[in-house]
């Protein structure tokens, strides 16, 4: 920045380092935040290559990749909601039970037709979220307690209204939400639109940076920033299309993730969530209504639990009373692996989705290799703790 020329001549002690936290690897200097994202991507690639090699080329086959994406979608949708909850410094332990409950309600209300059935799930999720959110925000009960109560109570409710029975999904359109694929042409269309958006966003932000006198990306860097995501998008669609097309749950996840990313990064609402999680005192004194935002974020989480329950129920074509068990922990783990701080104020939707993908990859890969279920649990637990451990190590040094 250019210092004003008419600065008063004062003796000033040297300015302390005014730069973003950086990490040094050999001669390389990377912004710590970016380094975290790269590490996650590399971890994912390593996991993929390992399983691909160990399964004799099955893991990254088009068919299995499609499966992997399907498996990611439920956790992913929940992780997007959970990310917002955690960023605001809260936690929601009830989402697994909510998925079970509202999935059951959707299945039981199929008699009223497709739309009422689907809408009831999402509205019920929203309502549950709003109830829990108001208990946290207005009755000052800690979120951990409210949602731990929810975890037990909502599971009890679905056991009660289903009388312990599994309800089959009979409406074909309902089932297709979890089982169908979109036409390959639509997939290609999506890829084209997505690449166009990547190009446009990059050019726009570069122009903006130039306008504010910030250093704009070099041509090479700009190329990279456009080419890399575009390649990923095209490869993604290509692989899915070479099997059966993009699964509908994946489309839903992408839509939810995009909406979540927009909400967290491009709205005042999102900014306030980070502020509340980062420093509630400062947020309150800046005129932010903390209670309203906490209520809203739990409501969103509830509605997304509704969406996830529809995918889940449709995929297995039935609603069993124990559906969604432990899903809340998968969602939290996905956020944490994706670099979200449980203290609040830090984390991205992208990271949470990547975390969900890593968790699903471990599940899928180990199942393909017929790893014993008990070992799978141990591995997942160890990965979760290790991910946060590495993050902490990196932060201490940085």
């Amino acid at each position, binding site marked *: 920045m250019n210092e004003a020329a008419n600065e008063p001549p004062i003796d*000033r002690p040297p300015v302390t380092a005014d730069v973003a936290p950086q990490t040094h690897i050999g001669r390389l200097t990377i912004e710590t935040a970016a380094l975290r994202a790269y590490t996650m991507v590399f971890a994912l690639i390593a996991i993929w290559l390992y399983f691909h090699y160990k399964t004799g080329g099955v893991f990254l086959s088009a068919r299995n990749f499609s499966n992997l994406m399907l498996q990611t979608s439920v956790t992913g949708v929940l992780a997007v909601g959970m990310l917002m909850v955690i960023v605001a410094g809260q936690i929601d332990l009830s989402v697994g039970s909510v998925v079970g409950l509202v999935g059951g309600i959707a299945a039981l209300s199929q008699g009223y037709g497709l739309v009422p059935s689907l809408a009831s799930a999402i509205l019920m999720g929203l309502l549950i979220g709003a109830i829990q959110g108001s208990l946290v925000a207005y009755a000052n009960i800690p979120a951990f307690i409210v949602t731990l109560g929810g975890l037990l109570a909502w599971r009890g409710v679905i056991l009660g209204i289903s009388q312990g029975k599994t309800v089959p999904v009979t409406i074909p359109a309902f089932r297709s939400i979890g089982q169908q694929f979109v036409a390959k042409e639509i997939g290609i269309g999506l890829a084209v639109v997505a690449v166009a958006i990547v190009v446009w966003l990059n050019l726009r932000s570069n122009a903006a940076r130039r306008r504010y006198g910030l250093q704009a990306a070099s041509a090479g860097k700009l190329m990279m920033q456009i080419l890399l995501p575009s390649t990923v998008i095209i490869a993604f669609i290509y692989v899915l299309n070479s099997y059966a097309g993009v699964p509908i749950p994946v489309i839903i996840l992408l839509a939810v993730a995009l909406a979540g990313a927009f909400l967290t990064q491009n709205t005042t609402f999102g900014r306030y969530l980070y502020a509340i999680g980062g420093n509630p005192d400062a947020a309150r004194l800046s005129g932010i209504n903390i209670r309203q935002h906490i209520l809203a974020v739990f409501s969103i989480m509830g509605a997304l639990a509704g969406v996830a329950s529809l995918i889940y129920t449709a995929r297995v074509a039935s609603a069993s009373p124990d559906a969604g068990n432990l899903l809340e922990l998968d969602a939290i783990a996905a956020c944490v692996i994706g670099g979200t701080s449980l203290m609040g104020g830090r984390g991205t939707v992208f990271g949470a989705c990547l975390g969900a993908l890593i968790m699903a990859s471990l599940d899928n890969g180990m199942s393909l290799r017929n790893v014993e279920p008990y070992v799978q649990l141990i591995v997942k637990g160890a990965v979760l703790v290790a991910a946060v451990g590495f993050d902490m190590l990196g932060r201490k040094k940085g």
Partner: protein
Amino acid sequence: MRAQDSPPLLEMRDITKLFPGVRALDGVTFDLYAGEIHALVGENGAGKSTLMKILGGVYPYPDYGGEIRIKGETQRFNGVRAAESAGIAVVFQELSLVKDMTVGENIFLGREPRRFGVVRWDELYGRAQQLLDDLHLQIDPRSPVRNLGIGQQQLVEIAKALSQDARILILDEPTAALTDAEVETLVRILNKLRERGVGMVYISHKLEEVFRLSDRITVLRDGRTVGTEATTALDEPRVIARMVGREVGDIFPKPQHEPGASAFEVREMTVEDPNVAGKLLVDRVSFSVRRGEVLGVAGLMGAGRSDLLMAIFGAHAGRVTGEVLVEGRSVRIKSPAEAIRHGIGFVTEDRKRFGLILDQTILNNMTLASLPHVSGRFVTNADAEAAAGERASRDLRIKANNVFTIAGTLSGGNQQKVVLAKWLLTKPRVLFLDEPTRGIDVGAKQEIYAQINALAREGLAIVLVSSELPEVLGLSDRVIVLHEGRITGEFTRKQATPEAVMSCATGHAKRAASP
């Protein structure tokens, strides 16, 4: 002063302590004899607490420069425990009791009498009872600390310190929360300890007490020792002169503000302590500020200055009564959001706790209070926001690579400018500044001062709270002085001498001057 024939119990030599950008202590020398009460006085920020934190092991060796000797032996405390075992006990300003434990448990916390790792409760409570009896305190060792008043808690702290067989007892503002009767109890206890040969460091803003209790007085100013003398050789005016005695005005531009119409007024503001029912933090305070005027609010720590501002801003947890008028119209403010809407900006004290989100960017911090205006009602406009941030950053000369630098990595002065920018972006009509230059270097201070004067010139009404007397006197057109929640003096710029203001602030010479 019989004890002073023997060598001193404690010697601190050339103690120096640096904080980022600030030299908190600069070659301070301090000693203490057995059986004496040595008072340590000075303005807020003079370095008293820092000095005692070094002695108490809170800032361990080698985080400071200089030497500490106890009975002639050099000590290098690596933590609080090391200082404790050397016989030093500290009763800090902030109470350090665990509220949900009993009095006895607190006294012996971490040192419970044990056999095979099992706590011997009877012995613990027996010893606690004995200790309390010794001090003539009518406190049940089995009652939870939460049930005690603040004053009694303070006395329990002292009992705790004594249970460690302390030879050196440090009391940091011990009477701040005590009632008159409790102060008498404390005085009795301290006199008794003096007879027992305990050396005591007594930090207080209340000079009356200092003169009543102490044998010697050391005055600190700006991190340096001004002098140590026997209490009998001093009197209050001389101590006050030493506390404030520096050339005021050098670094303050002397602007002539032309105060305009009344911008802001509060009437009969009363603020109750949220934790202690019936205790008033602010008692019927009224004042007004005009456009282009800087009103200084002087007073010592705990006088209720911040509580007053927080209450006006709708951010106080306790009961608040009184009337607030913005530009002549009575307004009801129940939350910071409403205060902001009525054109009040509030640069809060303690920027790390109340002002900034340290791990977010400068820009995010700057625009937090004005996001809907500078960016967008719901969808943010990154371009417009960055432009507003860049402009503010340039206006305030924030030194950073760009507005996307993380706020936590900035120096204190630059952080403070970010907080100031945050509130200026809300386009306030009245700006509260609470300790706007706490803990920042001299250069940054001057820039903030210049900024305050510029803002007043532009017609902003400013209420300035500061513990640094020269700052209040140098910047304000008018000064009110608070002591224990009440206005004890009001001065025009010409009348406001450091001595007059300080004596109102210490509650000694209450001389309510006419406005």
